[in-house]
């Protein structure tokens, strides 16, 4: 079987924050990995390990200090702010811990929000929002407001919003962090189902049972990649030193 396309190619990525007073902090140190289309990857690590910084770079919200990051064949480090916005809008779907829905807009408006920036007309936006809501089992909720549905449903709305541009990859930052365990399972099952449909998913979590839904795990510790392999084969002993 032919190998699948590389959607994320991270080479020698470093991120350094320069503080006032001339001090600096190396948050990411020489990170290398690739993610192929259709993979389900969990990025794990303790607080302050640098996993969120890595996620920001992968999500094109930040640029590496050095190294290269190629997303779906595009070199991200050399792109302008406008080009990065375009990449975020067309190639990436975001799912946030706090859902980040617009409470004063209908669910259909929330789901179709990324399409506004692609200059797609109102009718087409609504049509596609209805399709996406069907995909996350929320048909019939188009004209309600986020405050009228549960937290789990709100996260499903956020997932529908992430899917609406047919992105090459979905980034989920602690997507179950604000949900109870039953709802968390439902959301993770939805991610699993989407992954089986061929969607690449990269999620950041510090919860083992959430990471268990992923097939591959990348662990970051003190800014270094200390494990990159199958989730089910992970053990503390297999971690490399930073």
């Amino acid at each position, binding site marked *: 079987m032919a190998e699948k396309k590389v959607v994320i190619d991270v080479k020698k990525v470093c991120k350094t924050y320069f503080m006032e007073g001339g001090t600096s902090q190396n948050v990411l140190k020489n990170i290398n990995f690739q993610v192929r289309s259709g993979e389900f990857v969990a990025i794990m690590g303790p607080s302050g390990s640098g996993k969120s910084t890595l996620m920001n770079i992968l999500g094109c919200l930040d640029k590496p200090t050095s190294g290269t990051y190629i997303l779906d064949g595009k070199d991200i480090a050399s792109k302008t702010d406008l080009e990065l916005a*375009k990449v*975020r809008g067309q190639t990436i779907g975001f799912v*946030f811990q706090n859902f980040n829905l*617009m409470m*004063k807009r209908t669910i259909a408006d929330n789901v179709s929000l990324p399409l506004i920036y692609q200059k797609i007309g*109102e009718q087409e936006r609504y049509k596609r929002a209805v399709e996406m809501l069907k995909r996350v089992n929320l048909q019939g909720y188009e004209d309600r407001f986020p405050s009228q549905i549960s937290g789990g449903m709100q996260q499903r709305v956020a997932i529908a919003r992430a899917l609406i541009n047919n992105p090459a990859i979905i980034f989920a930052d602690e997507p179950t962090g604000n949900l109870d365990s039953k709802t968390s399972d439902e959301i993770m099952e939805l991610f699993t189902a989407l992954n089986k449909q061929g969607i690449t998913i990269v999620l950041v979590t510090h919860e083992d049972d959430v990471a268990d839904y992923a097939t591959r795990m990348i662990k970051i510790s003190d800014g270094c990649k200390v494990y990159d392999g199958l989730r089910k084969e992970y053990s503390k002993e297999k971690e490399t030193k930073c």
Partner: protein
Amino acid sequence: MLKAILKEAWISITAYKLRTFLTMLGIMIGVAAVVMMVSAGQAVQGYITKSFESIGSNLIVIGPAEIVSGGVRGGRGLPSVTVADVEALNGLKDVEATSFIMPAAVQAVYGSSNYGVSVRGTSPEFVKINNWEIEDGIMFNDKDVKAAKPYAVIGQTVVDELFGLQNPIGKTLRLKGKPFIVIGTLKEKGDGLMGDDQDNVILMPWTTVRQRLEGSERPQYTQIAFVKVTTEDKMESVSKRVEYMLRTRHRLKEGVKNDFSIRLMTEMVEKVRSVGFMLSALLAVIASISLVVGSIGIMNMMLVSVTERTREIGTRKALGAPNDWIMTQFLAESILISFIGSFIGMIFGVIFSQIGGMLLGYEVPISIWSVIVSVSVAVIVGIVSGLMPALKAMRLNPIDALRYQ
């Protein structure tokens, strides 16, 4: 794209209705104030112009000389222009007609009613020159003047005060105990420039005033003389001829000051109009201060809005919103607020100025320019006051914005 931005802006500003309304209120009051003040200024200008027109246009007014002492005007000297002078002026080139006033303030009596009136001894041309119209009856003629007939043509106030609902024509009223027959009534003219009642007047042949009312020992001096010029552009040349003729008739040597004064009505109208314009401009400037206050209100609200919606801005950026889209959306919000506010303010301004005009009895014009200017200013205010918050929103780092609690 514009439609989508406007819709997003509309949803955002309607999400917090009370706050948006209160912000709009500043602009509403500002624009309403500008429209009302400009209308008030124009109403005053219109009133002044109308008052002058009621006196008569293309007029040269000749009165007693001004007394100037040490550079300070000290009122008027004694009358020096005689009836003969005025009659002589009639023969000058480009003079359409002349007239004059010999005033007297007396108590008029009819039956059991009496009223203090302003009597004006004059010539028959007075009505035409000063834009008076005969409502009923007739004006006295030159023969009546020659014969010093005891005829009176009375204003509407005199009609109301002395005769009430009766027809005054043919009735006899008494002035200083002497009888005078009412031969005509004047059409209502309303208040004069100084708020004086122009209709409280009795016109009589000047000879009648002199012989029957004041006594013939009074010299034939006029209080004010009027020269009506054929066209406005001849005013200057005629006034020079008038001055020359009067100086010659009064035998004034070179270097001696005029013993009379000449004023051109057109100049007076222009002066008063320019004062009215200055008044309008001043009122508009004062009113526009409230527009500035309103714009500060918008800026304040938009800054609060950007801070409150920091995470929303981060989310939008993460979902692919370009920076200029974010900036345009916030600008659109402030422009919408100021535009809607100014539109409502304009409507209220027009309504209130019309109501005010109705209550005060003035005709208040609706100035299209004040409407256009105030709405345009409001849109500019929206852009200016929304620019800083919009730039702040645009420059937000998406990572920091997403983390904002």
